[in-house]
């Protein structure tokens, strides 16, 4: 397997094909246009089918159809486009269908901008549509990780019969980095005997459906979904810790912007301040256990996001009041610099040590 | 050609008393049975003179609820 230099959007597609993607339904929206473009060129060659839909709403419903017919199917979009897909995603969760959804997010709200943003955290992790449901949400920090996660995504979607979201941002999508496409590790996946492939006169009809007019039945569906989510929390949480063993201040950051925070950690350490980083790779389920392994030396946490603070809620939940939780963020597509993070970190440590009189 | 003769069977409990079948019978032998109430609480349609049925199938054609089955006997 040779190393190639590739744009993030295109690497996601190459990885998706390697991951078994057979169908792609999408719609143009910056900054993810290279994804439908690449798929329109390459998916057919790989034996799959690309189709540009008339809207994101139509695209997610095509995903619903193909997934219900048993296919490995994917769609991608960016923030407002993902907002349009929310009803469809809720239906996909309610009907327990596997698929992969890529959000190369951009600044909001409204039409917003096309620069990178992480202001879709709530949309991705709290379920942007109606009803109690979650997606397995991955937040790759670089193109190699994005490719690795994408290759696995279809298997995980089939295993749990649910959508898997790859949440990137404009940086991840547009920049080029070296990447190696690894082999898909074999998994034994359940048969899709629920799929609508035609009864062929041999079985009772299969019905892909999320309508349960009988409240008891709808509750049973919800209970079954919650059991699935409990399994995900037990088996699929992923995160990275960086220099947290002796840290006084631990940043929490994900995606491409976490790389800037890693640099800030190095600068602070050079200045004699022990900083560290927790980097969630799954945004949902959120890696709460990472906060159970923190040292006694810890005096504060700081959530660092390209938004005005969304993941900070989960950080506070995970902190359980044991440490003060600061925040630093930029929005609109503005990216914080390493120096801004260093100064914010130092400021928080001063405030915390002032308060605790150390 | 001998006149066609049919056996018509109404599955009373499926009927919703909508009366659509009562206006399409060429020999006019279908009416609503006001003396009966079916499982659904409707007065079901029924055939008054079965022997006159010519097995044309119109009643079954217009029935929205698959109440009627027809066999041709002659």
């Amino acid at each position, binding site marked *: 397997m040779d190393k190639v230099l590739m744009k993030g959007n295109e690497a996601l597609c190459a990885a998706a094909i390697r991951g078994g993607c057979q169908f792609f339904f999408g719609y143009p929206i910056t900054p993810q246009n290279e994804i439908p473009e690449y798929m329109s060129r390459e998916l057919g060659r790989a034996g799959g089918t690309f189709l540009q839909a008339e809207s994101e709403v139509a695209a997610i419903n095509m995903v*619903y159809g193909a997934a219900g017919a048993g296919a490995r199917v994917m769609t991608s979009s960016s923030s407002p486009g993902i907002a349009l897909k929310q009803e469809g995603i809720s*239906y996909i969760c309610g009907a327990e269908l596997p698929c992969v959804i890529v959000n190369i997010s951009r600044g909001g709200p409204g039409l917003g901008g096309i620069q990178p943003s992480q202001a879709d955290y709530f949309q991705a992790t709290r379920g942007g549509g109606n009803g109690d449901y979650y997606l397995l949400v991955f937040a790759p920090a670089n193109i190699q990780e994005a490719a690795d996660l994408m290759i696995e995504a279809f298997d995980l979607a089939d295993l749990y019969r649910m959508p898997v979201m790859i949440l990137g941002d404009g940086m991840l999508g547009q920049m080029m980095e070296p990447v190696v496409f690894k082999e898909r590790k074999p998994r034994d996946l359940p048969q899709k005997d629920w799929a609508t492939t035609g009864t062929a006169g041999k079985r009772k009809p299969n*019905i892909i*459906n999320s309508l349960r007019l009988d409240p008891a039945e709808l509750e049973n569906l919800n209970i079954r979904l919650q059991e699935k989510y409990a399994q995900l929390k037990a088996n699929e949480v992923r995160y990275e810790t960086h220099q947290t063993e002796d840290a006084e201040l631990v940043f929490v950051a994900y995606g491409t912007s976490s790389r800037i925070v890693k640099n800030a950690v190095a600068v602070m350490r050079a200045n004699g301040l022990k900083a560290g980083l927790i980097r969630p790779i799954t945004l949902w389920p959120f890696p709460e256990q990472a906060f159970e392994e923190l040292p006694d030396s810890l005096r504060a946490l700081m959530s660092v996001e390209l938004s005005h603070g969304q993941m900070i809620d989960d950080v506070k939940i995970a902190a359980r009041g044991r440490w003060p939780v600061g925040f630093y963020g930029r929005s609109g597509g503005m990216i914080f610099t390493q120096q801004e993070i260093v100064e914010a970190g130092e400021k928080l440590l001063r405030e915390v040590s002032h308060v605790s009189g150390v | 050609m001998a006149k066609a003769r049919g056996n018509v069977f109404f599955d009373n409990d499926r009927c919703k008393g909508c009366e*659509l079948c009562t206006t*399409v019978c060429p020999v006019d032998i279908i009416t609503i049975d006001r003396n009966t109430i079916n499982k659904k609480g409707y007065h079901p349609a029924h055939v008054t003179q079965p022997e006159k049925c010519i097995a044309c199938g119109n009643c079954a054609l217009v029935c*929205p609820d*698959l109440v009627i089955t027809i*066999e041709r*006997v002659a």
Partner: protein
Amino acid sequence: MSVVFEKTKGLTEKEFHYCPGCTHGIIHRLVAEVLEEMDLLGDAIGVAPVGCAVLAYDYFNCDMHEAAHGRAPAVATGVKRALPEKTVFAYQGDGDLASIGTAEIVHAAHRGENITVIFVNNAIYGMTGGQMAPTTMIGQRTTTSPFGRNAEQTGAPIRIAEMLATIEGASFIERTSVHNPVHIRKAKKAIRTAFECQQNRKGFSMVEVLSTCPTNWGMSPLASLGWVAENMIPYYPLGNFRNPDKEA
């Protein structure tokens, strides 16, 4: 002793929930009979979007998808692209197809998607209790046009069959009715031709079927059939608007 009429295998044992005299029941039967007669039940995948007929997924004796309101043509597209050899149909009401789902139906036709759409037009939203639909007639009272629909405020009823017939990809478009035995037989023929169009890969096929809604029209089932004939058919003329075999 030969059977003249019996319940088609294309329908399950479940009894319809439809209101007395609602012609959904007739149209379901026609679609099911055609699928049985063409021996397609084992290959058929139907899509039932939100509306009175959403519960069709319990009635058609083949694999089914329940779809979001208006999105059946997109869901059907996903199924058909995934399983090109199968017979895929969508069964939609007018609120679903002619209002929220107009983009999806137009683009399914525009793509010449090889699916069959059964479009049941009863000039009203049935499931939600009788609101005005884009197909509601001028002057027709509904729960959201209580003084009678007026064109100045809400436009004139939309003629879907004619609209879709302007699209190249639409191979077979016909408007039919089920308000009496003669028209029911014609409607069944059109439905059959539509499925044959799909089977012969000739592209998008749609049969619009004028239908009744006695409960929300506030009329008896028999009077409703008359209303279709006297009010709907003059405005929604029956007939074929696109036929793949007819030379253009």
